[in-house]
């Protein structure tokens, strides 16, 4: 198995406050890793740093993505080379239709990779197929990006975008929050469909429930800015039983 992502000894500050403190993590090709951890442990910071959000000061450490230095790549370059972040709070963009947005993104990525752009018909065909898989109505193509979407619709739209852009590394930042059981199942099935295509993933979650559907290969506990424990799904069960304090040994 080759390595998709390798983070070594990562220290990150936000507004001079140290959030990640020596985080190391390795994700193999096709591996689905879950990251669990208490509030404020740095989970979302990790997701933002991987996607290339500004405002994060990398103090130390390296991130290799498919053998390249991820930190040297711009946000859009990362996206074009297959990094996808499903946002915890998807952003509303009034005045831009969802289909325009996704088509612009897909074609920008294709252009960047030296591939031909999809024309309107090819795009629509693909979008219809993906929407059907996610049991989404096509009405949302013409609706402005995330505007007036319910919590569940927003998360489903994130997975729709992911499935349209077919990434190599997907980072799901609390994609389960705000979803009811039925929606959770559909979203998880959507993600699982992509796994058939050798997707690597980082699933950030607080709950066992999503992991029941996604069946991650590894589970990492992130606390106080670093990975303090790694294991298989039994770790999640243990966590459910004992809580973070029981595992980290903190009082």
């Amino acid at each position, binding site marked *: 198995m080759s390595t998709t992502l390798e983070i070594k000894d990562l220290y990150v500050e936000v507004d001079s406050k140290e959030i990640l403190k020596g985080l190391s993590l390795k994700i193999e090709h096709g591996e689905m890793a879950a990251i669990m951890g208490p509030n404020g442990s740095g989970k979302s910071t990790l997701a933002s740093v991987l*996607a*290339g*959000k*500004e405002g994060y000061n990398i103090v130390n450490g390296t991130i290799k993505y498919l053998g390249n230095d991820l930190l040297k790549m*711009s*946000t*859009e370059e*990362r*996206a*074009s080379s297959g990094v*996808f*972040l499903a*946002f915890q709070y*998807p*952003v509303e*963009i*009034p*005045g*831009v239709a969802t289909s325009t*947005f*996704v088509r*612009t*993104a*897909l074609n*920008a*990525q294709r252009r*960047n990779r030296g591939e031909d752009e999809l024309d309107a018909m090819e795009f629509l065909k693909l979008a219809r197929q993906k929407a059907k898989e996610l049991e989404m109505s096509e009405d949302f193509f013409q609706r*402005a990006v995330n505007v007036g979407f319910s919590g569940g619709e927003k998360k489903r739209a994130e997975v729709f*975008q992911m499935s349209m*852009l077919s990434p190599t590394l997907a980072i799901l930042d609390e994609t389960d929050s705000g979803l009811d059981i039925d929606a959770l199942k559909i979203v998880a099935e959507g993600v699982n469909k992509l796994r058939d295509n050798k997707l690597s993933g980082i699933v950030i979650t607080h709950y066992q429930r999503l992991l029941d559907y996604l069946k991650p290969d590894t589970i990492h506990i992130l606390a106080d800015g670093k990975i303090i424990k790694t294991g298989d799904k039994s770790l999640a069960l243990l966590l459910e039983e004992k809580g973070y304090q029981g595992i980290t040994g903190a009082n």
Partner: protein
Amino acid sequence: MKNLQHKYYESYKDNKLLFPGLDITWLKELREEAIAQFKKDGFPDKSVEEWNNHSYKNLKEKYFTPFSDNKFEINSKLIEKRGSNCVIRVVFYNGTLTNIEYDNLPEGIEVNTLTHFIKHKPSFLKDKISSAYKYAEERLSNIVDSRPQSIVAFNTAFHQEGAVIHIKKNVKVPGFIELLHIGEYSKDTMQHMRSLVYLEEGSECEVLENIINDTANDLVFTSNVTDIYVSKGASLSFNCFIKGGTNNIHINNIHGAVHEDSKFTSTSIMSALGQVRSENRINLLGENASTKIDMLLLGSKDSLLEGLTKVKHSKKNTFSDQKARIILNENSKASFQGKVRVDKGSDGTLANMSSKSLLLSKKARVNSKPELEILADDVRCSHGVTIGNLSLEQMFYLRSRGIPEVEARKLLVSSFGNIIIDDLNKNFIDKAKKIMTDYFND
């Protein structure tokens, strides 16, 4: 300034041959009342509340002569082909009619120039071309202030031409009517256009007023005043797209009288390098009358754009919705003043107003002032103003999907303007989008 007022007064007397209708008593009186008003008030200075954001220095210091130098040479570059859904188009070049284009004009639609109507149907115009006093500002202190309307008075005295649209009872105009004004005036001249749109009961009509002033080097002063009447149960969509050159001062005024069960939509899109000011004063005069006023201001370089709206709810159960979107780049400046006045007894009024500005450079400046004057008890009014830069969250979201920074910026800026453009009738969307594209490319 007194000197300048006197000079214009003399100019009015000296150039009488340029001003049509002086042989008609009521029109002569209207012009003379107007020049007297201007002589008294002058151009508004910063002590006039509606004019306190920017001083129109050139207007107060320079003297403009009435434009009279028509060569009838038409720069075809600026005149695009008539749109396929345009039933009739009136083309003015430097304020003079050059063409009225139509194929088969359906019955019940009369469209011609103001001078044509003055000559052949002056009685139709009587009491419809209104005095500037009609829309004078009633202050809360009960003082009636004519000064904010002194440009209208000036236009009433000096107008040389204009368009008249008359839609007869229950006639629904297929497609739209276009008034195209192309201006390539010579230096230090002025031209004032006076138009009238009159919809009889139950009629429906869409109008595009396209004003293109190309005056890169020469300082000119232009104004358009349009009196609009929407009779009972009628519906008018009036779309005014204004493009102006670097040294053009253009002041636009729309006065709308909207009657029972009727609907008036006014959309103004301004993209100019000089100074453009657009005022919309709409009176809702009958129950269930409604109006929607949208404005999109696109500023760049050293331009100054101002939008002013005033909706007066004078009857019960009337509705108004105002939306302004302002996008400013480089050193441009803009202002938006939106006022809702609900007269005593106009219960059941519903009025919304929103103004949002997007500043794309450090030097761009905007003033936004929403005002509500509510004298009735049972009303629902809302207003909201925001001024900001591009959202970093939105930029990150787009870029995280692979959209390059420049493209992401364009997408967000146009989406901001699309809130106005997407609401246009489909005949005008492409034209409006082109104005946006030109704005990006300039």
